[in-house]
């Protein structure tokens, strides 16, 4: 569980020694992550005003709790965890949690077994590869917007933020196995959405 953040105003000038490189202040560590925090906050809240509130609240919580940050540990995972916890207690976060269906939660328990791909000769122009190559950014945006929040956050951290499974598990407070199954489900859902778009385009051309 995340360490409790002390209420008192922290000292931004307190330095921590990162595992690589020299000592860093809160400013050094947090300001470069603002664009990434805002991007993820915007995806999750789907609203510019809520995203600004979310980033600001996260930033202030991190600033206050900087004394509890363990030097040498992963600051990015730490601050993303604050963002995620803040999001969960926000209005949009509560709404998103309520809209995750029971089926989706049960599906999480399912093991992604072997042999899900049909046998085929190696081909760099399979329908699946063509589908992804032909998908434009707008189609991918639509597909990502359709993902339920638990799948969206995991794919943002994995693909966009390039976090390791272990870091994602720490941010989301989940076992690594659940992170892996969510990533698999998220990518399967993205592919399914893209297939639907391609089928629609094909029908409209016919």
């Amino acid at each position, binding site marked *: 569980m995340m360490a409790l953040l002390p209420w008192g105003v922290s000292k931004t000038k307190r330095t921590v020694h990162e595992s690589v490189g020299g000592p860093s202040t809160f400013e050094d560590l947090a300001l470069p992550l603002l664009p990434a925090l805002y991007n993820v906050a915007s995806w999750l809240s789907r609203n510019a005003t809520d995203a600004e509130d979310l980033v600001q609240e996260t930033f202030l919580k991190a600033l206050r709790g900087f004394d509890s940050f363990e030097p040498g540990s992963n600051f990015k995972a730490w601050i993303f965890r604050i963002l995620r916890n803040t999001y969960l207690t926000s209005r949009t976060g509560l709404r998103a949690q309520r809209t995750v269906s029971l089926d989706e939660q049960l599906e999480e328990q399912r093991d992604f077994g072997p042999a899900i791909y049909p046998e085929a000769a190696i081909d*760099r122009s399979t329908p699946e590869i063509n589908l992804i190559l032909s998908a434009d950014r707008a189609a*991918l945006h639509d597909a990502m917007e359709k993902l339920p929040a638990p799948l969206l956050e995991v*794919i943002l951290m994995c693909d966009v933020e390039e976090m390791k499974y272990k870091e994602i598990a720490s941010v989301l407070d989940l076992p690594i196995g659940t992170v892996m199954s969510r990533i698999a489900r998220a990518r399967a859902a993205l592919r399914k959405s893209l297939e639907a778009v391609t089928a629609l385009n094909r029908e409209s051309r016919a």
Partner: protein
Amino acid sequence: MTTHLSATVLNALVDGELPVEQFAATKQHLDQCPSCTSSALSQALLKTATARAGQRYTLPPQLQERLRRITSSQELHTPLDRHDSSAKIWTMRRIASLALPIAAVLLLLVSSSLLMQRYGKNSERASIEQAALVAQILDLHIATLASDQPPEVISSDRHTVKPWFQGKLPFSFNLPENLPADTHLEGANLTYLHNRAVAQLLYSIGRHRVSVFIQERSQTSTTQNPQQAEHSGFHVTGFDTSDLEVTAISDVDPSRLAGLVRAIEEAQTKH
């Protein structure tokens, strides 16, 4: 070769998360299985496309500047700043030895400028903190409204609710004996604001629900309790005493909310 690589293995492969020993076995399988090689290529392409599409929102410059100022405003309290101030005072003394009246005027100007600068930065930070406080209070209130769980203490009796907090909070407060018309105490929760233990009193005014958050006044906090604020259709109001910060939120008519807050404020002066 009948068993293909699972989606989990393919994902771990493109995410660079396969353990070394599994990577060797996977590579051997891919060398012999065109189907899985196509699937791995497809996964890698999807990952790259998602990474590109996911970089969608640009941080507004004004937000970046606002947050940057928050960190820099705290530098005013650092020892480095005191060293700078000492240097300025030493310079002033040198000037004073040459022309005392001019130095006095200059000193006044510099002090005013420093005070204004500090006041400006602190007041900006306070207003941002206040907005964050209001947003968090709104989230807690909505979470309470949305919850199926009853309050941790269910009682309309102030003599039951107040003692319930003994040992749970590092401070105490009074509850009003007489409430405005159609206003009832419903219960209370122990909750957290900025990770500090806080009393959340639950009242009803007619059919409207009200949350009143009572917390210990922080010596270090620059946050001023909002006298009147609006957020997403909810009204927020409150007051500070020397020991407590009290903030109430509801969608009820602001004058009726103010009546309840006034009753709570008056109760704090009684013993």
